[in-house]
């Protein structure tokens, strides 16, 4: 095993450990915890399979193997970003509804108090 293979393997494992410990401490809710767990396991598998990736890259017609890694990583990060923006929009919509409901409730309470005072 050469130096670089060792560093890659180590990083993948450290990442997996971080994800597992965050999940254990309930810092990630279930669906995200599972998503990151999947990603980190894929990372470890790829790190182990690093020497074979050269063959895969050649088979795909890619002369420089890291290009393949970067391309895949970029696509994954891009999909994650869109997914997160979508979640953010959903949250924003829910928060808006909640704010409106709170305002309606406040008005109902104020109106009820006024009626009490008048009666």
């Amino acid at each position, binding site marked *: 095993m050469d130096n670089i293979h060792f560093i890659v393997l180590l990083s993948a494992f450290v990442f997996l450990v971080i994800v597992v410990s965050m999940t254990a401490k309930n810092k990630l809710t279930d669906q995200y915890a599972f998503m990151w767990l999947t990603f980190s396991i894929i990372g470890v598998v790829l790190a182990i399979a690093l020497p074979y990736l050269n063959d895969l890259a050649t088979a795909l017609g890619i002369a420089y193997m890291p290009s393949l890694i970067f391309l895949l990583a970029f696509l994954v990060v891009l999909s994650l970003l869109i997914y997160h923006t979508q979640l953010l929009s959903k949250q924003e919509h829910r928060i*808006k509804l909640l704010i409106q409901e*709170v305002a309606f409730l406040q*008005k109902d309470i104020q109106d009820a108090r006024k009626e009490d005072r008048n009666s």
Partner: protein
Amino acid sequence: MTSNILIIVPAYNEEQAIIGTVQQLQQFPEYDYVVINDGSTDRTKEILETNNIPHISLPVNLGIGGAVQTGYRYAERGHYDYAIQLDADGQHNPEDLHHLVAEMKRRDVDMLIGSRFLEKSNYKGSLTRRTGILYFNYLLRMISRVKITDPTSGYRIVNRNVIKWFANDYPVDYPEVEVIAKLARKGYKVEETKVEMNARQGGESSITPSKSLYYMAKVTFFSLIRSYT
């Protein structure tokens, strides 16, 4: 609820103008009104409370779309037949309310917009504003085949069907033009009638020249995408 018509008055930091606008509205007891205080940071909320003005105070600022939608949701809850949007800054003249309601009932349309430009009126907007209005006028003719001379006017009356729609779905920002495009594309009847508008009594326009390009691009994008889907 004493009326079947609700006037929605969105207000964000309107401490200078709100009392004047509300006093004018009180001349028309035949209509209910509600001020939507959109998380103002000035004394707007205090003024509304001490003067016993019917209002809904949003705990945080939602922006014009969220504030106006709050009004439509309130109108839907109260089973109002018509809802009228009227700006708090004094630009919209309550003298036109009777005219809006009468024309709305006579023409039996889904949305009736108070226009400054249908006939010659005293309104003089900035060049940026007028260019934008011309552009939107063209955009709406392309997308929805409706001729709207004053598409950015926020002075408008809608019927129960549209109240229901807006209570569920209303754009977040710059909603005026986008909703016309959508309604017209979906077969709702949108027309205009002439109103007078005043210079604002206080506060600042939400549309600065630097924002107008973003405004135009955003409205074009969304009107196209959301009207055809």
